[in-house]
Every structure is written in C-alpha cells, then in structure tokens.
C-alpha cells in the first residue's frame, strides 16, 4: 500500500499550481462561478487553451491525440486542483466524449475530433436528458431518421447544460424505433449552430443556466455518428463506468475558507474556532473530505491498474456530492444570519460565497445519476442484489 503521490505527480502539481496562480484572472474566476464550473465561456477558453497546450486537459490520452502519457492518478489530481483553484473542471469533450471516441470511434473521427478537444478548441455539451427521460435514460426519444446520406433529427432535450456556450452537442438519440429501448440508441456529434436547433435558457436556483434544446428537422451528416448505429447506449454506459466521478475540489476550497473564517472571527473575546461545537463539526467535515479523497483516488488507482471502476464510482459520486451538501450547509450554519448575505453586501462574510455553494450543491446529488440511482447501482453491482 501507498497513499502518497509519486515525486513526478507532486512536481506536476507544483507546476500546475504555479500556472494557475499566474494565469487565473478575476474575470475567469467570476465567469466560472457564474456558469457553474463548466467550460466554454470566453474567459475560460483563454486559460484552458494554455493549460491544454501543456497536455493537462487530457493527460492520459495517447500522445498522438494530445496526451502526455500521465497516470490516471495524475489526471484525477489535475481535475481536483483545477476545481480547488476556481478553474472550470466540468468538461464534456475532454472527459466524456473524447474517451468514448478513443474507445469506439473510427480513425477518421479520432483524427478529426481528438486533437481539437485536447487543445481546448472544441467543447461539447452533454445531450442525454429529455423531458420524459431523466433517471430512466433509455426512455429518450429524440428521433434521428436515416435519410441515406444524413440523419434527420426531431425532438426535445432538457437540462442540457453547456449548450449555450459549447460548440457541439454530444447527443444520444433514437435511431431504431422498433427495437428494444436500449438497443435503438446512437451517439452523434452535432454542431450546435446547425439550422433547426433552438436553445432556450432555463435558469437554475443557483443562478447559472441550463437549457432546453429543440431539434426541428436538423440535418446531421453520417460521419458524425459515433461508432456503430444503435450501439449508443452501450457506449454511454461504458463511458459512465470510466468517467463517473466527482472532484470535490471546489467544495474543499470553500471548506478551507470557512475554517479560516472561524479562526479569524472573534466572538466573546475568543476565535470562533475555539468553540467546542464548531470544532466538532469542522473536524467531522474534514474527516468526510478525507474519506471522499480516498474514494476519489481509488477510482484512479483502479484505472491505472487496467481495471474499470464499477460500483466504486457510484459510491464516490454519492459520497462526494452528499459531503458537498454538508459542507455548504455547515458553512451556512456557521455564518448564521450572515450566511444569507449575497456577495455585493458590505457585511457579507467569506465573500458571500457560501450561499452560492449552498444553492448549487442541491443539484450535485441529482444530475449525472441521482443518489438513489447510484445506491441502486451500489447494491446491484457491488453486492449483486437482485434487480
């Protein structure tokens, strides 16, 4: 056993931290927060392209496509650090579409898309959820009719975050209308500025935007089909096994800031951090963060060994997101009446950030598979309980 980073990984972390310190701008930090940590905004694109040029966006990819042959542990560490330091860390191209193209795409698709994703030039938006297909993803219904030289797409997507700032839609659609539900799904890459696509904003309680996307007779060339027709659901599930994870970095950062606040805040002549109850709560949170980090890097370790994380990724995602909610809630509790003050108030504490995290954290246990779906997976795949 060994629970420490290697010298190379530590050196990489140092270099990355230096980079982020140098390149981060207030505008980029604000944009990232305002958009909910996703990639694609103008400020984010500036810094991420520089970061990608070092191979850090897709460090584990083959070198010919823009990787640097790094370990998965290194790759997980980079994402954790990016989150901690306020960079966008939710990438669809680099983390979901790219790996699927590497595994299942043909040579042409690899050549066309991987370098552009790895350089940060192209970002995609996840196109899975529909009004009737949330947790029950196989119920997705956006129709893609085979018209010989192209597909013709019609239907609705909902909660498709990133569509308003990304370049392409990483789209799951139905290509066989007779087959069993999961056997008629295909994956495609669609330009989001294609004629017939209407993107309407849906504003979340966290302030950032997700989208409703309507497809009306949208033509998609055949070479945008990923892998084989009707095998999309299999690709999608495989991708989830490989990529399902939640870096806690953003919430780890706010936790550290809350800790600092308790040290600096004097109540009745003593720092708040000397209050026995506060100490218990902060310590408990630090423990849960440690457990999350162990679960998180375990996924990387499994991948580095050549394995595929199974129920472990569901466990990490659930544990991490529930920890994120507890961190935010604890922050609000500690701030008390001040917790409600927004960042523009002169009385705001911790820069008014805590209430934002408190609002955002609500969705963490819902999107990318609810905690309930994850617990089903843990029970059925981790413990082989009957479906």
């Amino acid at each position, binding site marked *: 056993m060994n*629970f420490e980073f290697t010298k190379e990984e530590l050196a990489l972390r140092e270099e990355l931290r230096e980079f982020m310190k140098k390149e981060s701008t207030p505008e980029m930090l604000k944009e990232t927060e305002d958009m909910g940590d996703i990639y694609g905004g103008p400020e984010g694109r500036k810094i991420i392209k520089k970061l990608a040029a070092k191979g850090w966006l897709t460090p584990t990819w083959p070198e010919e496509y823009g990787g640097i042959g790094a370990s998965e542990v290194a790759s997980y560490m980079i994402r954790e650090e990016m989150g901690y330091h306020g960079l966008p860390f939710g990438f669809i191209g680099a983390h979901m579409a790219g790996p699927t193209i590497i595994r299942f795409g043909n040579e042409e698709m690899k050549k066309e898309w991987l370098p552009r994703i790895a350089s940060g030039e192209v970002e995609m938006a996840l196109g899975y959820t529909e009004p009737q297909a949330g947790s029950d993803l196989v119920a997705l219904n956006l129709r893609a009719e085979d018209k010989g030289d192209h597909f013709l797409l019609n239907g609705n997507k909902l909660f498709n975050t990133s569509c308003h700032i990304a370049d392409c839609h990483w789209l799951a659609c139905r290509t066989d209308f007779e087959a069993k539900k999961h056997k008629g799904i295909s994956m495609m890459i669609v330009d989001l500025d294609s004629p017939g696509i209407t993107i309407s904003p849906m504003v979340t309680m966290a302030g950032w935007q997700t989208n409703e996307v309507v497809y009306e007779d949208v033509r998609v060339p055949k070479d945008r089909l990923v892998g084989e027709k009707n095998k999309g659901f299999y690709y999608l599930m495989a991708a989830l096994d490989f990529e399902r994870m939640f870096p806690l970095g953003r919430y780890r950062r706010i936790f550290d800031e809350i800790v600092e606040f308790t040290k600096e805040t004097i109540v009745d002549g003593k720092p708040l951090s000397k209050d026995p109850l506060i100490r218990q709560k902060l310590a408990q949170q630090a423990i849960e963060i440690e457990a999350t980090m162990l679960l998180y890097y375990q996924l990387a370790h499994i991948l580095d060994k050549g394995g595929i994380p199974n129920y472990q990724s569901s466990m990490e995602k659930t544990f991490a997101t529930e920890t994120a909610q507890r961190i935010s809630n604890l922050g609000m509790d500690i701030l008390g009446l001040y917790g409600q003050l927004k960042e523009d108030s002169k009385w705001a504490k911790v820069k008014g950030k805590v209430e934002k995290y408190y609002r955002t954290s609500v969705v963490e246990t819902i999107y990318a598979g609810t905690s309930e779906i994850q617990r089903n997976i*843990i029970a059925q795949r981790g413990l082989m309980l*009957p479906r």
Partner: protein
Amino acid sequence: MDYDFTEEQELLKNSAKGFLSKECQPLFVREMEEDAKGITPELWQKMAELGWMGLMFPEECGGIAGSYLDLMVLLIEMGYSCLPGPFMSTVVLGGTTIMEAASEDKKQELLTGIAEGKIFVTLALVEEGASYSAERIALKAEQSNGDFLLNGTKLFVPDAHLANYIICVARTKDGENKKDGITLFLVDAKSEGVEIASLSTFAADKLSEIVFNKVKVSKENILGELNKGWPIMEKVLQQAAIAKCAEMIGGGQRALELVIEQVTEREQFGQKVGSFQAVQHHCANILTYLETSKLMTYEAAWRISEGLSCEREVAMTKAWVSDSCRSLLALAHQSVGGTGFMEEHDLQLYFRRVKAAGVYFGDSDCHREALAEAMGL
C-alpha cells in the same frame, strides 16, 4: 498510489481466515463469552505457532519482523471472527509498549515470551476519569528507599485476569504540564498489593479494576525513562486505536455478509427482500460505511507502518470508523429484521462489540477534538 495488499499480505489474510473459520466459530465465541478466562490455552498456543504474537517483533526476540500493516491484516480477520482472548492487550498494548520503551534485555525476555505464547501482558492506563488523556492519570508512584510505591486504582484494564505483567501508567511528578511526569512501570501481576477484580461487560470483554495498594516496584522495572512515559503512550495509543479500527472493519465485513445472506434468501410480498429499493439502499449505505472505513484504516495503518506522522489520520480514522461501523450495524439489524434480534443470530455479537470498540482508545468526539487541534482550530 497503491490501494492493494501485497501478495504476502493476501496470503496472511487467507491463512488467518482459514484458520479462524475452523478454530473460532460462533459457538466457541459464545462459550468464551461465558468462560472466566475467555480463551483456551490450545487456541492461544496454535496462534503462537502461526507466528501471530510475534508478527511485529524483531527476529532476535522470536518475532518475524512484519510491519504494522501486516498486523492490521491479521486484526481485520480477528474482528471478522470475533476472536476472543488477550491478543489486543498482550500483543498490541503490551508488546508495542515493550518494543518502544523496554531495555534490550527486557525486550529479549518479554517479547520472546509473548511470541511463544507463554507471557501475557496488559496495560493499566485508564482510571476513574475514563479517559485516555494524560490529564486523567492520577495513580501515584512515589520513591521510597530507591524503589517506587504505586498507589491508586486503574479501571477498564483488559485481560488483567490472565496477565503475568501489568504495565502501569503512573504519575511520578505533578506539574503544570500533565504530559510530563508520567512513568511506565512493569509490574509483576503477583506483586503484593495488586488486587484484580473483574468487571462484567456488555460485549463480554474481560476488563478489570486493579487496585494498587503500596505496590513496590524497583526502578529497574521502569520502561523507558522516569517521567517520560507519555510520548510512548501516545504512540502506543495511536497504534491501538487503528488496531481497534481494523477489528471493527473485520466485524463490519461479516455483518454485511450476514445481511446479504438474509436479504437474498428471505421473501416477502412474493419477492426477495433484497430486491426492494428500501433494503438495497440500506445495503448500499452499509457498503459505503464499510469501504470508507477500510480506506481510512488502510491509510492510517500505512502511515504508522512507514513511520510517517499520523496524528491527523489516526484521529480521523478512529472517529470515522467508530461512528460508521456503529451505523453500519444498526442498518444491518434493520435489514435482517426480527431474526437478527435473536441471540442465536450472529449479528448481535458484532452489534455489541462495535459499540464497545467505539469507545476504546478514544471515542469519536475525543478524536474529532484531537483532529481540530491538529487542524490548528
């Protein structure tokens, strides 16, 4: 990073599992709960022959110079089987203290004796204050004609009824700094003035009250240096706390298996109970408690093994594992239902033990406080 056991550790784990599944069945565990000694000489001797007592001791003291991680592997299996007897007291508390503090001669004699299964040692630390902190050590050792006289009462001393030697943690100086002025005395359990009275406990741990009434100990029997015993105790307690965590995760593993057996067999409403989402979510939570507990324990044990600083990790781990394994057992009972409430079902063995284990070597609150201190709060 590497989350896996070595090949040797896998072998050790499997051989321990095989051995205990034969030698330490639930019926035997129940017998030993009622037994005054709580162990049979036959089993203890077999364990000694397997090299378990001397696992961590140096080769010249009859040991096999294994690591603390190796010990953890073994303790997990002991927890899995609810192994009764004085392994924790003699090997982890006694053996570690001797390794850390005793002179070479004493190490040779005592560790060899422990490794051969011939000597039992325990640690008398806790007093009426029921805490493992230096502030609560009041039992006095006063110099008298070149010897020391021990006066006071120790409580919750494990396996004192078997012990040949008692390591008594005594106060030899009372100043501002309570961590200073503590001395470790190796006391022959048969010394005049030592009175051992057993305490009846809910998890069948064999604990005792020991009254030291003017017990004479020569200064040759000080382990380590006069007044400087506490730093050694801190180290021993760290190792003991994680050892207890290892036992708890072993027990948690078995509890999970008992749950899965029940919910995949029993049917209600025409379906396996384990197919209901309410039950599945209990099971998922059990597995999450267990796996996080394992990972925390592995990390802390690894740091101890490597001689790295481990204050934070020990505090985090003992707090997390104590709470999680307790919650795990509560969910296990809820999932198994009425059957698990019966004495004859094994789940209750673990339910009792895990609660007791939670308070040994510091409960979660006290470890969270230690962590808060380490975090600079």
